[in-house]
């Protein structure tokens, strides 16, 4: 194990060839370039703003808005509300349409995705056509189409289509009775909460029972009975006793339009339908890929253990497919939320329409408005991907 170390000349270090030095050089270069660009942009902006006499700062959020918005979830009036309120109105409208859209798109998307894998040739092909057509046409076009498709055939308010029970449809939207809660409506609420709590308790108990005795219970039916049945029964009892816990504000015909009740704007419907059908096409693909990702061997193994198809799906296929589905599904949810900004094209007052549209134009404070709007979307995205990363780490299939 003896080795002779012969004399070699000590290495001459050439600093320029040291990767660390080179790295530092490139990075400094980058920082300088980016910094310079930012500096130029900022100084130009300051100069331009001064020249154009545009105010800066976020003070404008406290100024009176002076305009009205068609759909507001908080009280909002041209006289009393500020630009800050307008921001909240827009944000809430975005969130509402996104939230409902996500729920519906998920349902439709899973249905279509599973249908694409159906053994029924007809069902599979129709789903395929649905997916291909919807995916390959711009959403904007679809929204514009839905908007006229929704608006076009609807009658003027005077000729409203009535569905009975105070439900009307006309070109101003869908009108429904608005529930008014009487003082003892709390009973129903309590019943609902009791039902939910009861379900949770029951499920726990059923699982324990199963672990101990192997006995299984019809969890689904009992859940339904508790969550829906209990409130219904309590309402029935109250109604029979004579106090009516819930009354309805019915839409009435006015000069131009129906008054009172609850109104769902056609813009909202068009946006929702467009977003849901479009996103569902993408979700369907995600779902299909996820299910296909679970190998046939898994189903066969489960089958050969004697699990029934339903059980195989629930215990073996779905848990594995979900791991594949959830990450792309989340990005579809994010896409839906971001796409809701196309509301601007059909006049639904979402964040971009109200804030980046009206407020920006009324105040001229482009930088502040753009920064706030983008900040909101960015926050939603970052929070979602942060949560997703945690989830992914938790469910990742353990490998050697």
């Amino acid at each position, binding site marked *: 194990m003896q080795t002779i170390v012969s004399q070699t000349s000590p290495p001459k270090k*050439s600093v320029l060839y040291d990767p660390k030095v080179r790295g530092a050089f490139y990075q400094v270069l980058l920082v300088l370039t980016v910094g310079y660009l930012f500096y130029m942009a900022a100084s130009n902006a300051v100069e331009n703003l001064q020249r154009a006499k545009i105010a800066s700062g976020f003070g404008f959020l406290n100024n009176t808005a002076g305009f009205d918005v068609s759909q507001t979830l908080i009280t909002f009036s041209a006289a009393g509300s500020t630009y800050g309120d307008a921001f909240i109105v827009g944000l809430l409208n975005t969130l509402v349409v996104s939230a409902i859209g996500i729920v519906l798109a998920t349902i439709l998307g899973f249905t279509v995705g599973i249908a694409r894998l159906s053994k029924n040739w007809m069902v599979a092909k129709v789903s395929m056509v649905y997916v291909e057509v919807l995916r390959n046409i*711009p959403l904007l076009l679809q929204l514009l189409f839905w908007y006229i498709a929704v608006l076009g055939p609807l009658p003027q308010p005077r000729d409203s289509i009535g569905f009975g029970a105070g439900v009307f449809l006309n070109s101003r939207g869908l009108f429904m009775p608005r529930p008014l809660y009487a003082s003892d409506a709390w009973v129903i609420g309590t019943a609902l909460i009791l039902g939910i709590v009861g379900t949770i308790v029951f499920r726990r108990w059923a699982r324990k029972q199963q672990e101990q005795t192997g006995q299984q219970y019809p969890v689904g039916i009992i859940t339904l009975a508790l969550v829906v049945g209990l409130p219904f029964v309590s309402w029935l009892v109250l109604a029979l006793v004579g106090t009516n816990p819930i009354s309805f504000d019915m839409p009435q015909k006015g000069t131009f339009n129906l008054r009172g009740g609850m109104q769902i704007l056609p813009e909202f419907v068009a946006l929702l339908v467009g977003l849901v059908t479009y996103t569902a096409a993408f979700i369907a693909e995600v779902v299909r890929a996820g299910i296909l990702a679970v190998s046939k061997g898994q189903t066969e193994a489960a089958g050969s253990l004697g699990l029934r198809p339903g059980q195989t799906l629930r215990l073996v296929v779905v848990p594995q497919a979900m791991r594949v589905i959830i990450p792309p599904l989340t990005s579809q949810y994010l896409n839906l939320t971001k796409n809701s900004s*196309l509301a601007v094209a059909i006049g639904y007052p979402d964040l971009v329409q109200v804030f*980046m549209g009206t407020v*920006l134009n009324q105040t001229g404070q482009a930088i502040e408005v*753009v920064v706030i709007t983008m900040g909101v979307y960015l926050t939603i995205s970052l929070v979602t991907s942060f949560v997703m990363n945690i989830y992914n780490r938790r469910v990742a299939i353990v490998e050697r």
Partner: protein
Amino acid sequence: MSTAIDTSRFVQHNQIEALPPPNLARGPIAWVRENLFSSPLNGLLTIFVFYLLYVIVPPIIDFLFINAVWTGTDRDACRAETAGHRIGACWAFVIDKINYFTYGSYTISERWRVNIFFLMLAVGVTWLLWLRAPRRDLGALYFFWLFPTFSYVLLTGGNMDLGGGFWVGFVVVSALFIGAFAAMAYLLKVSVKSGAAIGAGIIAVIGITLALMDFDFGLDHVPTSLWGGVLVTLLVATVGIVFSLPFGILLALGRRSKLPIVQLASVIFIEFVRGVPLITVLIMANTMLPLFLPAEMTVDRLARPLIGVAFFASAYMAEVVRGGLQAMPKGQYEGAMSLGLNYPQMMVFIILPQALRIVIPGIVNTFIGLFKDTSLVSIVGIFDLIRTIEASRIDPNWAAPTISYTGYAFAAFFYFVFCFGMSRYSLGVERRLAAGQNR
């Protein structure tokens, strides 16, 4: 055939020929039973789907073809009162406006220039996407340099009129630049000649590009405010593609860089852009870009959304390319390194060609997204196809009930043909790549 149930010893002496399967497994009836009515639930579903199709398809066919109006010069042709029958799609409207939908208000006598642009685009796309086309390296050069430059000259008319002063300045700066390259090469102890050559190459590319733009080819200037329709739609998409691929690759390399600041900068850019809706990026480009530029500098109104779209697409492209880079086995890097290739050589000759090939489907899918997204420029007032349709459908000359639907159907058809074509292409490539792996 003697049964062998109880024999534990058995030898088959005569070969049983392959028989056709029993009849129930074949024929249209069997097919229908197996594929449409295999169980009561399936039967029900089939009937439901048939009903659905019955409700949806005939009216669509009816609208698009049977009751459609193909000829006419104004609204009278497409109104039930005047035409005297039920009216479906008013294709006469599209035919009447087709030139507007294609070129916008582009000067009529100059529209041949747009046609050449379409042709050059088709050539470039085919060259790049057809995997077995000859000299695809030249194709890339064409698509990412010559084609954009020529298109610029052709569409705007070129003749930027930079003036002699500019060119004097350019020559001085070029000389300095080449000198800097040579000096750097000297410092880095690589061949000064090749350093200067690289510098000169870069200058030559920029110089030739500028010279072409500056040269007066005798083409009339056509201001971008006149451009519109399919021209603008394809233009926005093309700029997005031409710009986003190289820039996306740079961003992807940046994101995988070991240098923390480079990596951080790439990550911030990519995640920022991917976190916000395109429409906000467009509005920002539209309203804020002028604010960030010096007062005397203005950016063409069409160029603003182009810049926005290009950056937006780059971020998405970067993520696709990064996927390809990550899929490259470490052995390829090591093989290249052990031959003594340096980083740029390794990337250009070994890693990127393979990584990009793997992600062709991803790239094409990004293009599809980009192509669909071009429609959003209409929201910021650019006259793309959608916008020209929107503008035409309130033309009182053509005011008729089905005009809007017809316009949208036309646009939907246009986008569908392109996007579906691209998606089939990417599927084909994907299959071929998968097949190649099993080789």
